[in-house]
């Protein structure tokens, strides 16, 4: 009987030796004359357990991890193939609480299938969304996305359906679907996991977008730091074309949709949608002024739907199961689920997909198990380098776009970077300004010059040179950047800076407001 063993091919598994583990299993199995088939699946997203090896048993898949090549002989000795006991035994994968307590809609297939197998994808509800969309009028597809309440998962949280409607309603000889896969935020990896672990889901979402809006060409702009994602997408696109899911006649519908991967070149600001379009056009990634909106005048001057990876990847299930199914998850105006990413100094880091409404505290402790260092958690940066540092008093606010905006924060792309009590928030605030100075496209003055002045001012505060005046200056500078910058790069860099200053004044050498008053 063939034993099916799963060894992830996700970058985070490769980075801790998954290839070596796969080779060891292959060698050991052949030495023992065992009939083992190794499937290189995506990652389940339990990164502290990677490389996590799974084996198919009659009861379901059983997991072991983290596995090193040295563990492989003993794993085979104790009967890996029938889910035998071993110090690394984790039980049935689906029963691991971290996974079991999630609401995986978008990440439903993640880690289960072979990412490049169309047959696997189809066997797990893949392409059901596209098949449904092809039976509907394009307007009805757009309406379904509107009704689902899906908002841009890249960080701006703009209602996706409105963009779709605008592109669909603009007539042109050529329209484009562009996927923003320039996932540069520290603490985020859900786009990368999607591209490496379930690329057909993104391809299907983009194809549905093309059918709904009348666009026949799509580009996926992937950052150059993601070589494995680029390779997986290119292979998946070729497989989808060969199977008739892409090309001149998608599934015999008479509708055309072609897809191409474009590689970025290490510019963070290209994650801003108009800078990204400039970059695809072969220019420097300089932000464009809006209007005109990309939906009307976008790539090569044509109407362009530009959405983040997770936004587009959420579309297949909305079409397959209906807008109401998706909308029934979530709270307030934040509908559906958000694939959250627990990162940084956290014991159990990984991907947690939950409906909106979960709290940071639940994520940090129930899922994350506290800090990796074992020290108290001091601050959490939510939403990437442009997100606020949240102190413990804010960890009980339900995750909701509006609630976070109200406290001067952002959910962004759902990445959470955890810092323990050794972190110096004035240093992190300085880094926020430094990063902005490195990555600013240079078009607008508040961002280009403000970021450099910001580094200097924070240096003076840290060195206690005219500290009280410099703090006033820093706040003034942040005000200019927030209100005067062209895009989120300069406009949101003050979020981490001011939140650090407001919630952790001790780190800047200033007394908290209540002590000052006393």
């Amino acid at each position, binding site marked *: 009987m063939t034993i099916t063993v799963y060894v992830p091919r996700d970058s*985070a598994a490769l980075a801790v030796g998954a290839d070596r583990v796969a080779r060891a299993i292959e060698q050991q199995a052949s030495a023992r004359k065992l009939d083992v088939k190794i499937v290189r699946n995506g990652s389940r997203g339990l990164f502290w357990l990677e490389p996590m090896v799974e084996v198919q048993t009659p009861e379901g898949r059983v997991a072991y991890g983290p596995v090193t090549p040295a563990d492989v002989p003993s794993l085979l000795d104790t009967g890996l193939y029938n889910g035998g006991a071993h110090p690394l035994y984790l039980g049935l994968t689906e029963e691991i609480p971290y996974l079991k307590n999630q609401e995986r809609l978008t990440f439903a297939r993640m880690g289960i299938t072979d990412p490049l197998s169309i047959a696997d994808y189809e066997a797990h509800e893949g392409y059901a969304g596209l098949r449904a969309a092809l039976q509907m009028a394009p307007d009805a597809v757009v309406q379904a996305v509107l009704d689902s309440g899906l908002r841009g998962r890249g960080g701006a949280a703009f209602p996706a359906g409105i963009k779709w409607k605008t592109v669909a309603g603009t007539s042109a000889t050529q329209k484009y679907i562009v996927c923003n896969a320039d996932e540069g935020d520290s603490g985020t990896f859900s786009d990368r996991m999607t591209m490496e672990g379930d690329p057909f889901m993104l391809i299907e979402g983009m194809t549905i977008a093309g059918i709904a809006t009348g666009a026949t060409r799509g580009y996926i702009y992937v950052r150059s730091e993601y070589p494995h994602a680029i390779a997986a997408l290119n292979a998946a696109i070729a497989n989808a074309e060969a199977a008739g899911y892409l090309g001149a006649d998608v599934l015999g519908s008479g509708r055309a949709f072609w897809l191409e991967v474009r590689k970025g070149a290490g510019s963070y600001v290209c994650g801003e949608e108009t800078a990204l379009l400039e970059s695809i056009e072969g220019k420097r990634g300089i932000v464009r002024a809006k209007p005109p909106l990309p939906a009307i005048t976008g790539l090569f001057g044509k109407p362009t739907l530009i959405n983040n990876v997770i936004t587009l990847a959420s579309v297949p299930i909305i079409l397959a199961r209906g807008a109401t199914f998706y909308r029934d998850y979530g709270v307030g105006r934040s509908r559906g689920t958000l694939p959250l990413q627990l990162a940084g100094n956290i014991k159990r880091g990984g991907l947690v997909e939950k409906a909106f409404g979960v709290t940071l505290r639940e994520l940090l402790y129930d899922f994350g198990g506290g800090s990796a260092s074992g020290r108290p958690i001091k601050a959490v940066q939510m939403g990437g380098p442009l997100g606020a540092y949240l102190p413990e008093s804010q960890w009980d606010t339900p995750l909701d776009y509006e609630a976070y905006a109200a406290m001067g924060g952002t959910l962004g792309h759902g990445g959470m970077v955890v810092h323990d009590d050794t972190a110096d928030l004035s240093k992190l605030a300085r880094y926020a300004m430094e990063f902005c100075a490195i990555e600013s496209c240079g078009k607008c003055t508040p961002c280009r010059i403000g970021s450099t002045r910001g580094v200097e001012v924070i240096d003076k505060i840290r060195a206690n040179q005219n500290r009280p005046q410099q703090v006033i200056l820093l706040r003034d500078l942040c005000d200019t950047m927030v209100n005067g910058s062209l895009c989120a790069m300069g406009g949101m860099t003050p979020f981490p800076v001011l939140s650090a200053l407001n919630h952790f004044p001790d780190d800047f050498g200033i007394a908290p407001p209540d002590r000052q008053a006393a």
Partner: protein
Amino acid sequence: MTELAERPRAQDPQAAIAAILQRRAQEPGALLPILHDIQDTLGHVPADAVTAIADAVNLSRAEVHGVITYYHHFRSEPAARHVVHICRAEACQSMGADALVEHAQNHLGCALHGRSKNGEFTLEPAYCLGLCASSPAMMIDDELHARVTPRAFDALIAQAGGAQ
């Protein structure tokens, strides 16, 4: 000392560039794919290639130069035989990336963006490799490594091409 450090060149650079331009120039927005192909083939985008590129895509030399220098990924000078990227972003900082960068600089004997004393390694910062739950992370050429301690760093460098 550093002459040997360049990537082995499989073919004549001029011919390689001409072939890339021939293949790519008609694509919409061809410039970035062209620059990637040239850098992937030659290890960098030589300054003397700018004229040919500009002609092929009907841009001015200034525009092409502007694009090459705008993006961190493109280099106008050859890198060492191995390029080491260490992530400096927040998640990696929370797990000791600053100390790792400092250790790397001492071990290799160069600053960020510099070349190691033995000429074998170019050291570059990265701003997120997407391994934020397994920090600190780094990349040697195209190979990713997570949860890198200073000791693991030394071993990886030794394995890749020998340290000092």
